[in-house]
């Protein structure tokens, strides 16, 4: 009888201690990383809506024998249902579309050239990634980091490289949050003081009609869809959100898309990404490479926008402040604000905010176009 009790007690104690026995130092490192993300979000206000769920998910996923991940675990279920099916990024696009005002872009559509210029970083990063030995599918997903657009990055990653989803998501959202730290040194390195002081006049011109704003999203879906049918989910959901905003008869849906929908999906997406950040998945050379290349992609993108703005200036009478080109990355509205702030720091009367924001919004659209073009080419080249 005594022997049975001892065995029974042993089993209970063994069960209670199983978590502690199974704990590895790698999991402790991941807890630290998860807690650091939560700290950055709460204390420094860096992308809190994403970094808090990502950090929390990472902690939960790295608790030994965690029921949150693995077969039947809620975080794994969310990954299978929401991310690997590309559903969550697509749903977020409805909210992003509902938040975008394409009015300034319709008023001055040439700013889209600067938005396109900032996407050059994608192609440069894809080449560098393959030179470093990444397979083409992973290199493509890494290159999309150059858009500085989280949902597009996740969409492409879930299509081609779900195995590196966690470092890609972390790179995308942490670098977006760090835009105010990443962009200024690149801008300063590539521009002179006199270029940064260059003033741009704002031509108010006639307003854009409501009909034009209504027809634009519909035309974009049809044109982009016909050119690249693979684009329909990305562009279609973005423009649906924008149509809800502009139609004037679906205010409740537009408000829901901008608030409840995007908030709920962002929470689930963040948790899911955190759930993929298990020590086995994350603590390896590939993740480190992805993070480094992500920073390179942002640098290439910022530099691309500035350089193309300078090239355009060679042919224009009315010069563009080259800093505005840097706002073409999709990190909205941070990139536009950084540029406007830098202009004011050089010259207290130099108000570039309207120009920078127009380019920033065009970057939002161009990043999606770039993502779609890359997907279409990969599909044509590799049949993937």
């Amino acid at each position, binding site marked *: 009888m005594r022997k049975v009790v001892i065995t029974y007690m042993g089993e209970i104690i063994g069960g209670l201690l199983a978590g502690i026995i199974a704990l590895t130092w790698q999991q402790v490192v991941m807890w630290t990383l998860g807690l650091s993300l939560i700290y950055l979000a709460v204390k420094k206000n860096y992308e809190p809506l994403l970094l808090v769920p990502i950090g929390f998910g990472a902690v939960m996923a790295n608790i030994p024998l965690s029921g949150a991940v693995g077969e039947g675990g809620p975080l794994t279920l969310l990954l299978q249902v929401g991310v690997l099916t590309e559903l969550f990024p697509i749903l977020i696009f409805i909210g992003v579309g509902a938040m975008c005002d394409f009015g300034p*872009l319709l008023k001055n559509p040439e700013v889209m050239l600067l938005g*396109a210029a900032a996407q050059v970083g994608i192609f440069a990063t894809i080449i560098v990634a393959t030179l470093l030995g990444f397979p083409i599918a992973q290199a493509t997903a890494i290159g999309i980091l150059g858009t500085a657009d989280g949902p597009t990055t996740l969409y492409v990653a879930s299509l081609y490289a779900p195995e590196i989803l966690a470092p890609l998501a972390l790179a995308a959202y942490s670098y977006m949050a760090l835009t105010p730290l990443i962009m200024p040194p690149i801008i300063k390195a590539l521009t002179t003081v006199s270029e940064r002081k260059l003033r741009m006049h704002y031509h108010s011109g006639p307003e854009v009609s409501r009909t034009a704003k209504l027809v*634009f999203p519909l035309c974009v879906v049809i044109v982009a869809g016909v050119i690249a049918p693979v684009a329909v989910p990305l562009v279609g959901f973005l423009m649906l959100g924008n149509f809800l905003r502009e139609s004037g008869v679906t205010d409740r849906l537009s408000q829901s898309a901008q608030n409840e929908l995007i908030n709920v999906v962002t929470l689930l997406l963040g948790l899911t990404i955190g759930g993929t950040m298990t020590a086995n998945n994350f603590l390896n050379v590939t993740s480190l490479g992805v993070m480094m290349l992500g920073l390179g992609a942002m640098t290439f993108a910022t530099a691309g926008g500035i350089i193309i703005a300078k090239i355009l200036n060679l042919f224009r009478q009315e010069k563009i402040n080259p800093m505005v080109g840097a706002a073409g990355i999709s990190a909205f509205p941070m990139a536009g604000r950084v540029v406007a702030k830098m202009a004011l720091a050089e010259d207290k009367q130099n108000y570039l905010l309207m120009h920078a924001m127009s380019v920033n919004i065009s970057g939002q659209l161009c990043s999606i176009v770039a993502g779609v073009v*890359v997907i279409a*080419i990969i599909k044509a080249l590799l049949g993937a």
Partner: protein
Amino acid sequence: MPEEVRTALMIAAIGLPVMIGVIGIFILLARVLTAVFPHQRDEA
């Protein structure tokens, strides 16, 4: 040159002009829409 790098170069060589072409179409579309549907004073 490794096959992967060659594919990456090909993606860049095709992707850049295609992307600029699509953006060009959007610029044209924006121009056409604002010309066909000009802002009316009573809309404001």
